[in-house]
């Protein structure tokens, strides 16, 4: 047996993905394309919120959507039905998207002719939070039926998101969801997060969310 040495590594566990994500952000800066990574659990309303966002912003920005699905193309078909370019990435069982998968999606789009690309990440509150997609900003949805305790159970996603959309507020009257308690929990993890109370169904709050997104895009492409 040889001599045992201690070798310093001092690297981020996902440094390869981080590097790739940084490269992607460089490309996006060049083409002046804002990339939003939208995350949530399954059924929180990602596709519907994206649809509402497209309706609000399609006259202002040239948009496209990258759809991540473990194995179906239902969501991509919905978006394409609106006349917006949609790229489907099948993750083949993976619970998240990483920067190299997003790169493939972006390669299928004409970035020079796009201002805003939205990634609909895999429906999952855990894994997508760990992997930098190369996005300029991250947003997440928490829907009222999921409960206000989710920041305790799935804290990481709340720490990496710039905006939180609390969706399905039309259900508030039917539940004991405490918006104030949610807000304190979320801000303890991430004090600068923007919180939007939204019902994609009734349209309430969608303008405020879309307005925030438009500001981010304008600031980035300016």
């Amino acid at each position, binding site marked *: 047996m040889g001599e045992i040495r201690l070798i310093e590594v001092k690297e981020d566990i996902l440094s390869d993905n981080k590097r790739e994500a940084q490269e992607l952000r460089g490309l996006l800066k060049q083409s002046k394309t804002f990339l939003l990574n939208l995350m949530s659990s399954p059924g929180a309303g990602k596709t519907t919120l994206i649809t509402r966002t497209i309706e609000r912003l399609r006259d202002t920005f040239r948009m496209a959507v990258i759809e991540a699905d473990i194995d179906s193309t239902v969501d991509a078909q919905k978006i394409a039905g609106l006349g917006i370019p949609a790229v489907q990435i099948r993750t083949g069982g*993976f619970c998240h998207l990483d920067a190299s998968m997003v790169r493939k999606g972006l390669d299928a789009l004409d970035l020079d002719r796009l201002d805003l690309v939205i990634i609909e990440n895999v429906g999952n509150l855990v894994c997508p939070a760990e992997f930098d997609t190369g996005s300029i900003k991250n947003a997440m949805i928490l829907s009222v039926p999921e409960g206000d305790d989710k920041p*305790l159970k799935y*804290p990481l996603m709340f720490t990496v998101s710039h905006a939180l959309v609390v969706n399905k507020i039309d259900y508030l009257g039917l539940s004991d969801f405490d918006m104030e308690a949610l807000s304190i929990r979320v801000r303890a993890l991430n004090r600068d997060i923007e919180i939007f109370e939204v019902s994609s169904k009734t349209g309430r709050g969608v303008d405020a969310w879309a307005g925030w997104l438009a500001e981010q895009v304008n600031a980035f492409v300016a």
Partner: protein
Amino acid sequence: MHELPVMQSILGIVLRHALMHGVKRVHSISLDVGELSDLEEEWMQKYFDHLSRGTVAEGARLKVRWVKAVLVCDGCSTRFELDRNRSEPPACPGCGGTRLSLASGREYHIKDMEAE
């Protein structure tokens, strides 16, 4: 849930450093992981064992140091651990303040490795 790609990344980094240092065998790898991340130690080791088969890192033991999630109060600078089992929203034990910042708990580092 996502331990497999995470362990793949760790193995890649470890093998790169092993090559740089002319290592014949990696005995252990020390990681600092914030407790807000959702990795399971048992699965990390299982996936690592599977992925590292036939490499110089085969049989290496993962030593995970879990870093506590610590909050700091804006008002009085008290530092306290985030208790995820508490159902009430977090508040400063010193002054009751709810303007808090996260000081640690998101670490995700490979620190060093023991090798020969």
